[in-house]
């Protein structure tokens, strides 16, 4: 029995999608502007796309962003998985509950407050140890890992809860040492959660602006920061080209993620 979706609801959904995609469409269109305006379309040209690749600062920022996102992903995933497993096994309920609540803070706190609080800490520590340039890659990394960790934990935790502890015990029972048993049977089962957490960290880090804005330094600019400084200046269509490019990259990434997820779900459903 198929659910019939009414025409009105279809129309409504289309309208919302138009709303959501209009700015992206505008951006894409203007990235092919032959003039240098982001307001008036003069004609078609790919020159801004070429220009974009010559913008060394942009390319450098892109490189930094990806590097930061990758390192953030690795660090927050490793820390997050360890924390999830550790907290999951924790018997002290109060401690566990407290930690889970602390985990929620970066997600609930306004980003601007998170960003500021970390900047205050970094600068304070910087003056304490008398380092002139604390704000940079390290502080960005710390900040990014901090706001990604909750997402890793919140993705892995439920998988652990779903996980039948007997399976781990079965491995031990069959002669596996505890750590090996964890790697051999627990890891594969919570892998989906880990991968989702991993990808989320990557994309969140890739896209973060507000927190980075307060914790970055001149030596390490990320793309969102660079874009922000561009929008503070005269914006030329090459920025739109860059954004369109990023959009495409993320599109591909998301499709990939989605296929992986669909597969995993299929597998789960088969159980």
């Amino acid at each position: 029995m198929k659910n019939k979706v009414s025409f009105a609801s279809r129309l409504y959904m289309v309208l919302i999608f138009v709303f959501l995609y209009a700015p992206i469409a505008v951006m894409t269109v203007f990235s092919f502007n032959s003039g240098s305006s982001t307001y008036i379309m003069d004609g078609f040209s790919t020159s801004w796309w070429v220009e974009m690749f010559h913008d060394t600062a942009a390319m450098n920022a892109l490189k930094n962003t990806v590097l930061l996102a990758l390192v953030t992903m690795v660090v927050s995933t490793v820390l997050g998985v360890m924390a999830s497993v550790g907290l999951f096994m924790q018997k002290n309920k109060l401690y566990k509950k407290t930690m889970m609540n602390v985990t929620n803070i970066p997600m609930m706190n306004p980003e601007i407050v998170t960003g500021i609080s970390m900047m205050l800490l970094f600068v304070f520590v910087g003056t304490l140890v008398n380092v002139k340039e604390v704000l940079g890659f390290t502080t960005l990394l710390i900040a990014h890992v901090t706001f990604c960790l909750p997402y890793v934990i919140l993705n892995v935790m439920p998988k652990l809860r779903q996980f039948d502890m007997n399976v781990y015990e079965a491995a031990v029972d069959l002669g596996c040492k505890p750590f090996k048993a964890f790697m051999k049977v627990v890891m594969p089962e919570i892998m989906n959660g880990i991968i989702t957490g991993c990808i989320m960290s990557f994309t969140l880090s890739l896209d973060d602006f507000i927190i980075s804005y307060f914790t970055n330094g001149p030596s390490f600019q990320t793309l969102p920061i660079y874009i922000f400084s561009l929008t503070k200046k005269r914006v030329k269509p090459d920025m739109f080209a860059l954004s369109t490019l990023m959009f495409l990259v993320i599109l591909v990434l998301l499709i990939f993620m989605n296929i992986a997820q669909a597969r995993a779900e299929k597998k789960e459903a088969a159980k």
Partner: protein
Amino acid sequence: YEDYFSDEQKAYYKSLGLQGTTVNVYNWGEYISDGGEGSMDVVREFEKLTGAKVNYTNFESNENMYSKLSGGGVSYDVITPSDYMVERLIDEDMLIPLDYSNIPNMKYMREDCLNLPFDPEQKYSVCFNTGYTVLMYNKKLVKEKPDSWKVLWDEQYKGKVLMFNNSRDAFAIAQKLLGQSLNTQNEQDWVDAAKLLAEQKDKVNPVYVMDEVFNLMESGEYAFATYYVGDYVLMNENNPDLGYAYPKEGVNAFYDAFCIPKCTQNKKGAEAFINFMQEPEVALANEEYIFYASANKAVQENEECSLYGNDAVYPDPAPKSEVFENLPQNILEFENNLWSSVKSGNLSVNSKKTERKIYIESGIVAGVVVIAVATYFVRKRKKDKEQDLGDLYEQN
């Protein structure tokens, strides 16, 4: 790519031993020739010649730069504050003296750009550009060339005015209209100016912008803008409908200068960069790209330069003008608070009205919430009683 430099120059920069070092440059936005439209990519050229890596970042106002610098946690090697900010930084002991032996290109400097009042001993700064603030207008929307800042208070241009989004420059306009000195230390003067600005906010709802002015003004949507003259020329290139005026009340004349802050970690690199910026080729490239009057004699005297004799950049006769000076701390804070009040509308005539409106709306919302919560509890009580079935069990 073109080869801009002589072997001698190349050898000089190579010999500095800057290879592998980094130079953090903190400059105004749109204030360097960045390689766009076939121009020289100055930063890239410097990197090529010296082998140093430049982290080039931008600020949008002196205050913005000062905040970042004094906040700590960051290290910059070259900054480009304007006159009054140079003075402040010197006062607050945030700059280090320059070693001119590392800046041989001082020889190219215009005499009128040396020993300026903010750095009378020429110890801390190397002037980069000079210029004026200017009133821009869109010929399509404004019939007559304005001659006074007064037009920025004209209600028929409501929503069509772009105003400085930085306190000193914004105040300057009001101060000129009021006939005050830009550097007055009389608090009442500042209050008056602030009131005038608040009145402007009430009347024309100006959009406060800095470098965003480029896109907005070029788009042709706005009638007036206040900005720096070099940037006007740049905008004018993209939108020929734009015109400019030096209002009769007078304008601010400014000098932007290279300095090295205390937090530097590469003083030699910084000096090399400052020196490089004064290479005639570089200074020319900059002037050709950003259209500001260079402090470099070689450029000013270069008849080939497209700006040579440009009457906006080199107005003749020079407009009535005044240069900013640093203000004492208490005035600065006073000014800052006034500026916040202006922007958030606290000072406007409308402000009480607006405030009242906010309170009323908040009151309504709070009322709705209270009523909702109360209803929730009342209903919960009622439900609770309704669901007590004890009495019914006893029956039959």
